[in-house]
């Protein structure tokens, strides 16, 4: 068993070294696509992070009807918590609301202190939503609860912004998938040529009694290795390039709210992801080519 595996590896490496130009051109095809995959993965990763940060930082402000007295609050809070997508719920009574209001006005807020006696504000819940739920959807459900006067959040602007980010993320995934398929196609194409050049070799292997799986193994190992070779440059570019960008931007994009993911571990994960993609692409590409060649019937 081990002897066989050893031989397959030996054959595979001999294949690579003795057809080095071919192996290199296959690897190059993978390199180019993986650089694009890397770029997109870095963007998508950060967009996801920013979206998540934003979603977590945006609260829904739920004003409670003045008619509701303190005793009814816990029951109402349970109703709010029961809504799909609601994360944490924090109760803020009339006085706390006034504190917040005054603090929000800054220096000029002091004049509102006169309302301490007869507070016109309503108590409220500060609701944070779970990720994966839209602000507008949750808000709409919240506004239907009896005893809720008004529901406020960043409104259409916040929603739109989040929607744009989500679109970037989703299209990023789609493009990554498409590029991966393209890489499979490219490696498959070049390995096809390699195998076509080695048609004679395969015929000889068959002639001396090699089984199909014996013929297939070295080509598959070769494909995986070529894929891995193709991933080296993109992986290094990812680690050092991202590190450079992260450091020169001080880890932020435009404002402190849009923070980038730190190089460690993010860039390393992406590099590992590229290596895995490279190998998988090599595996699938070579399997497809060699199987096509081995489809032989009497």
């Amino acid at each position, binding site marked *: 068993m081990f002897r066989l595996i050893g*031989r397959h590896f030996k054959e595979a490496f001999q294949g690579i070294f003795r057809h080095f130009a071919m192996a290199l051109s296959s690897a190059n095809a993978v390199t180019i696509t993986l650089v694009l995959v890397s770029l997109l993965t870095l963007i998508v990763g950060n967009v996801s992070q920013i979206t998540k940060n934003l979603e977590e930082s945006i609260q829904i402000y739920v004003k409670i009807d003045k008619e509701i007295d303190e005793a009814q609050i816990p029951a109402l809070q349970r109703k709010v918590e029961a809504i799909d997508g609601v994360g944490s719920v924090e109760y803020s009574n009339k006085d706390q609301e006034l504190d917040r209001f005054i603090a929000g006005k800054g220096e000029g807020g002091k004049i509102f202190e006169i309302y301490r006696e007869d507070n016109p504000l309503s108590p409220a819940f500060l609701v944070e939503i779970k990720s994966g739920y839209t602000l507008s959807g949750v808000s709409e459900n919240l506004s239907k609860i009896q005893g809720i006067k008004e529901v406020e959040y960043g409104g259409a602007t916040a929603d739109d912004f989040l929607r744009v980010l989500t679109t970037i993320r989703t299209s990023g995934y789609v493009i990554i998938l498409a590029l991966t398929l393209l890489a499979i196609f490219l490696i498959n194409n070049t390995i096809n040529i390699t195998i076509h050049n080695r048609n004679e070799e395969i015929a000889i292997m068959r002639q001396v*009694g090699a*089984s199909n799986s014996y013929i297939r193994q070295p080509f598959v190992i070769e494909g995986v290795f070529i894929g891995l070779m193709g991933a080296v440059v993109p992986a290094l570019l990812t680690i050092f390039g991202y590190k450079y960008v992260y450091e020169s931007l001080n880890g932020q994009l435009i404002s402190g709210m849009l923070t980038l993911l730190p190089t460690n571990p993010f860039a390393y994960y992406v590099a590992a992801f590229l290596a895995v993609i490279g190998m998988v692409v090599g595996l699938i590409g070579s399997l497809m080519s060699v199987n096509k060649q081995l489809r032989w019937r009497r």
Partner: protein
Amino acid sequence: MVHLQNVYKTYKNGVNALNDVTIDIKDGEFVYVIGETGSGKSTFIKVLDGEEIPTRGTVEVNGVNVGKLRFSKVPLYRRTLGVVFQDYRLLKKKTVFENIAFALEVINKPRKEIRQRVREVLEIIDLTDKAKSFPDELSGGQQQRVTIGRAIANNPKLLIADEPTGNLDPERSNEILELLEKINASGTTVIMVTHDINLVNKYKKRTIKLETGHVVSDSKEGGYVANV
């Protein structure tokens, strides 16, 4: 060893390559199969090594019904044969040693055994000093000897040689024939397809002549002239 009973082979394009061929070849024989181009010699080899299935009739080699072999069993069957081609079919990127060892690696023999056997084979084919050369560095005759070496590496009971001297000058052809005789003397049955009249007349052996897919003569004493 080899038994063909009423074998027919018709290709999809309608060509009748073999017509009612019945041949019996015993263990340890050395047989020439001769004939013009298109006489069915190549198809004869193809039904023997399992590349083609006869349309009718049975092909039995060493107790195996070759026509009935499952696709997946063909590689296993081929390990019991040695096949030599006119165009050598050596792996260009492998050395002489590796080319011969390859036939044994494929069937997963232990490395030590392979090394020992390859050395023996190199001695038989008289190419010990060329072990590290690549095929392109060898003459045609030497390349053909490597092919023969690869074919006999696994001690096959049957060696099939398809025009082994087709690309060689008379002197090299004689060398190849003497090598095949040496292998035959050690007990291996040899079937050699050829149209080299001089060789057939010089090294007389049983000679089967094919013409448009029919066996037109089977002479025990051999010689080409006698068969025409």
